[in-house]
């Protein structure tokens, strides 16, 4: 019979038959277990559980290597927070470009004059970053009154420092902009 209730009924019967067959198959779990097999399995499981899992052993070297790399990277990032731009003085001595930069301790000594609370002994004993960013952070923390004045003196063109020389060296005119004499 094609179509109609007959087909639906047959499909239902098929489904029932499948269900019966599957139930019979899935319920039949007569597994012959030799005597002592369960105990042996328990002992083997206990022995296996008490050794280091293989997955941990496998990942241990990778964890050591990864940890070392992470520690090295962290060390590089923490210990070099940024260097003070330095320039050689005419005498050849290396000096900081801005006055006061690199000397954060002077802010702490200036605090009583500004009326701000002075850092505790513990804070004073803490290492201070020697970089430029560390200094600026300290200045902003203690207010603008303690910030060092900016060096606004214009460099002399008669005796140009290295920076100006470098600027003129890098920013040369392009060929089409060259002056024709």
């Amino acid at each position, binding site marked *: 019979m094609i179509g109609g209730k007959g087909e639906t009924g047959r499909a239902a019967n*098929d*489904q029932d*038959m*499948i*269900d019966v*067959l*599957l*139930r*019979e*198959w*899935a*319920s*039949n*779990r*007569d*597994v012959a*277990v030799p005597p002592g*097999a*369960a*105990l042996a*399995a*328990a*002992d*083997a*499981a*206990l022995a*296996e*559980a008490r050794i280091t899992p293989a997955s941990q052993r496998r990942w241990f070297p990778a964890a050591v290597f990864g940890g070392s790399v992470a520690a090295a990277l962290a060390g590089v990032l923490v210990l070099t927070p940024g260097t003070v731009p330095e320039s050689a003085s005419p005498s050849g001595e290396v000096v900081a470009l801005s006055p006061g930069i690199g000397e954060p301790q002077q802010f702490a000594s200036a605090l009583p004059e500004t009326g701000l609370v002075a850092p505790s002994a513990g804070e004073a004993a803490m290492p201070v970053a020697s970089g430029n960013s560390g200094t600026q952070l300290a200045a902003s923390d203690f207010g603008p009154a303690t910030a060092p004045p900016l060096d606004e003196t214009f460099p002399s063109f008669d005796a140009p420092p290295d920076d100006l020389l470098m600027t003129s060296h890098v920013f040369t005119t392009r060929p089409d902009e060259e002056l024709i004499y």
Partner: protein
Amino acid sequence: MSDVAAGDDEAFRALTQVLYAPALGTAMKVLGNRAEAEDAVQTALVKLWRTAARFDPEKAKVETWFRRIVINACIDRKRALKPVDPIDEAYDLESEAPGPEAETAGMMRDARIGAAVMELPTRQRAAITLFYGDGATMNEIAEALETTPKAVEGLLARARADLAKRLEPLKEELEA
């Protein structure tokens, strides 16, 4: 179970004696191979020992909880293994000659159904085993397979439709 969680070896051995045979039966239905089933149960026992402290008797019976561990061990094992046909899986009954294990009609029928079920994906097989063999509810199967009851309904529907096609010759023989 609390003794097992406390690290009592004897309690673990006693519990294993109760759980081992049913677990092996379930694993054999899912994996279709005794050696693999024994390995899966072994893995499940190790996990039982290690995670016994997490067992909550108010949420499930020990048997249900362990069955879930076994099913997961079977699925993990099947996933890890390459699809190979073991030598002792010669019950693919294409051959006309009945083997010693297929001497009776019932055994033959079981073997044919088993062979058809083995063609299903592992999760469908596990769902079929739990639904028909253990009478597990959709929620229990979903918990065991770490999915939703709705997804389990889908798994079962697909598995039944697939098996209906595969077992068509067997049905015709039974109806004749």
